[in-house]
């Protein structure tokens, strides 16, 4: 018995296309269908990478005692946007994985994004430390 390598994708034309009512009937042949695999979202991985780099960059240019606004931006990007981007990536990744169509890269995209997100979060934490320092500086204690 021939077994499909996974759920077939629906063609926009050809056999079965446009069958939108229960009565339509297609032959019950065992057809080995060619299924296009789904790759991890490269744009999302790149955005995560850029976000991480920008978070680190903001920490560096903000300086040890530097610009509060710069560090605050680094904090938002690193600790908040980084997590949101990770969430978006995982949504996309999980959906592709659960469909059985995912063909991951040689280096696991999931691991790459996880590492980048951790780095981004740590950069955000460093920025948070700088912001905290600036705030604490103006308190009387």
């Amino acid at each position, binding site marked *: 018995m021939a077994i499909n390598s996974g759920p*077939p994708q629906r063609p926009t034309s050809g056999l079965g296309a446009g069958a939108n009512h229960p009565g339509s009937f297609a032959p019950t042949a065992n057809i080995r269908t060619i299924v296009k695999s789904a790759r991890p979202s490269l744009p999302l991985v790149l955005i995560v990478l850029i976000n991480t780099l920008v978070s680190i960059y903001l920490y560096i240019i903000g300086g040890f005692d530097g610009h509060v606004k710069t560090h605050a931006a680094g904090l938002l990007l690193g600790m908040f946007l980084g997590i949101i981007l990770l969430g978006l990536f995982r949504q996309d990744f999980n959906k592709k994985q659960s469909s059985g169509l995912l063909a991951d890269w040689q280096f696991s995209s999931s691991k790459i994004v996880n590492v980048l997100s951790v780095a981004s979060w740590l950069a955000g934490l460093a920025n*948070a430390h700088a912001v905290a320092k600036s705030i604490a500086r103006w308190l009387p204690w």
Partner: protein
Amino acid sequence: MVIVKKQLLLNALVSIAVLSPASIVNSSAISITPAVQSPPTICKDANGVTKSGDLDVLLLLDNSKSLSESDEEGERFDAIKLLLESLANSERKNSFNNFGLITFGSATDEIVRLGPITRDNFGKIFETIISKVPNSKNEQEATTDYLAALNEGISILNGREKSNCKFIIWFTDGVFDISDSNDIAIDKSEAKKLQTQVCGENGLAQKFQNALINTFVVFLRPIIGSGYKGRSEASRDAMQAITGDKEPNFDGQSARELKAPCEFGVHLGEVFQVDEADKLKGFFTDFGPIANGGISISDDCPSIGGLVSKPLPNAEIIEWIAITSHNSEPPDPEKFFVRTDGQEGKFLDYFILKPGETLSLSRYFQVKPEKTLALAAGWQLKTEDSQLVCVFAKVRRIKFRIRNSDPRIEAIEPEGLSKDLFASDQLVLFNGDEVVTITEALNLVLVTGKLTVVNGEIFGNNRIPVDIVIDGFFSISPAGCKLKINHPEGVAPKGLVQTSTCDIVPAPKGETIVDAEKALRSLNKSCPAFVWQLVANGKPVATDKWTVPVGSNLNAFFFATSASAPNENLECNSKQGLDPVVVSLSNGKSQSENVGVSVQYKFLKDPSSLLVTIFTALFAILFAALSLAVLRLMNILIAKGPSQSDFFGYEDEAELVSGDYKRGELRWLSGSTKNYVADPDKLHQIKVNSQRTSLDVGSLRFSRELPPITRPFQEARLALRSKSPAVFWQANRHADGLSLGFGKALVISYVDGLSSKNEGMVRVKVTLLVPKRGLNAGISGVQQLISERGDEMASQLFTIGAGLGTKVTEKTESKQEMNNASAPQRAQVDSRIVGTEANQKPPEPPRSSQPPQPPQRSN
């Protein structure tokens, strides 16, 4: 022509050598190349005396839209960065380098307030410029109104101390244009307005002349239409009238006359036209060495086709050599050579890199001590390489003491200066402009000197200004010494806060008093966070007046706080308005000098580590909670089940019986266990709610299950809302239903749970979801899926049903196996996953003995 003009410009700037202590006594700008007009008068007061204060550099930067065409790549910002780097790295011990920036377009904007520029803060200053003056057409202004900027510039510089050297660098690529119109009538009226404002009575040109502001126009040649001709000519007149430059470099022409009412005043600056934006970097790079007191030593700057310097004086009087590059690469000293006594040697055999002076495009070098004598007057520097470079040399500060007895002239600085350089009549003493003898000079208070050196033309007619100290008199060292603090924003230094030090050299022969009473009073009033005191020769002076010990050559004094800085945010800016320290000698030869005081600091509190840790932790918790909340929201909004328009449902009933080899089999209602023909009438529409969070197919109901809020990255899934045992293809990771991303699905489940068990036979429902469109859609998809997966799944349900009571183990193994499996394998593993109740008993389906019945098909 451009090069000649550049040379003129550099020579004009030479007199910023006020920064060079040696030139404070009397520096004059000398043009190396023949020029019709004399070099501009730089950094001198109304009496022609060189100013000894800070260096104030105010950059007026054009921010009109035309810049996006004339300098599309934003080269001007790279050039400005080089200027800042140069100014920051030419920090001086006793005075400040100050920098400010004003942009102009339709209006003016003070981007950087004129203030000290240091190695610590120049990066921040540049960031401020980049962030506030983006190279974007959207941020730039339509018109070019530089009148307001010039007025603001002169207002700022007039507020500075009179002793400061005041520079304006006026960068523009356009003509005066306040209407953004090329109408001829408007052109004329605006040209007239400009002429009146600049050249009219008490106009801007007059104000610049009165304030002795040295203005350098960097004019990035604009492309203008005929509708701007009048304003273009008026703009050029304005630039010349303000700078007093009779020989601007407009379009390669040399001399240019002014149109009335404009007229030339004192030559205070230069107009420098740049044809290409990328050449700006060179101009701004050169400004650093020039501001440090460097003087170009070659005819060409930058050199073209190799550089050969003019014959240079004895290396003993040269403090450093600076090489600037007009390429994008820093200068390569390996390509330079020294020619002396007809022989050539490598530059680096004679010179070493000056520590801390390695900038982007410039390098500073000092003569190796052991090679000083080898470079006698007449030596030259050369490079045959075609790199575009400028080379500058700075003359060393030289100080002599004169006395009535032998040796009548003694070199104090630098120590060990060859006597050949001053032993005969090379040193000439002056009382003002009058030449005096040593004997006459000994009876005077202020004597200046000029030393004639061979090949010293480049430093000023062979005569180099030197300091003269009269034996018995004191000298404040370095010349023009100020007690100052220039602490940029940051944590306060550990220990006491103290100003720079001034020395009294040589030891006076009479009673010399350092009176700091008034100075301390004004300082304590201006900067009340501390109690300031006078420290002399390392010890605090209680009375605010210190008597300098006679005969000691190690006399130094400064101001210091009585205690270290408290851990608070403290700021003081008393640069102006502080009374000076008065140093006076009274031994029959009265001498009195003032030492200025300038204190600027902004100390930041070093906050409690505990407090910072708490705040950081709070931030971390807050953002973690916020992130989890947002991720939950994302899951709610984004994780959706299948669409009703994409799938058909299908459901049929069968009996799960024990087949061959005790494998479970489906016995269809037709009686067949082998063949099944899908019934199109059983294909039906699925029901999905509007949020796509629940799915009804046949008698089964699935609902969306989101991952736990603490594990937001797990996948959402469709879970079966039934307690009956069931197997799924493809099952989700929790084995309780389907994943959200399924393409088609098959579910075999008990009918009504255990109640359906009857004499070893279990009634099951076979439920499918198949796509409405595409290959194997609709009823063909049902047929195919049952054919391919039906037996296998029935067997699994049968096997697992028989082993009820071990459900947990079964599920765990299945999960692990699935996690370890590759994607294609997972489909097979999934089909073995079952969701059952732990207390269910295994079904006991009887083996069917009936022959298979032909399939029934209803129409």
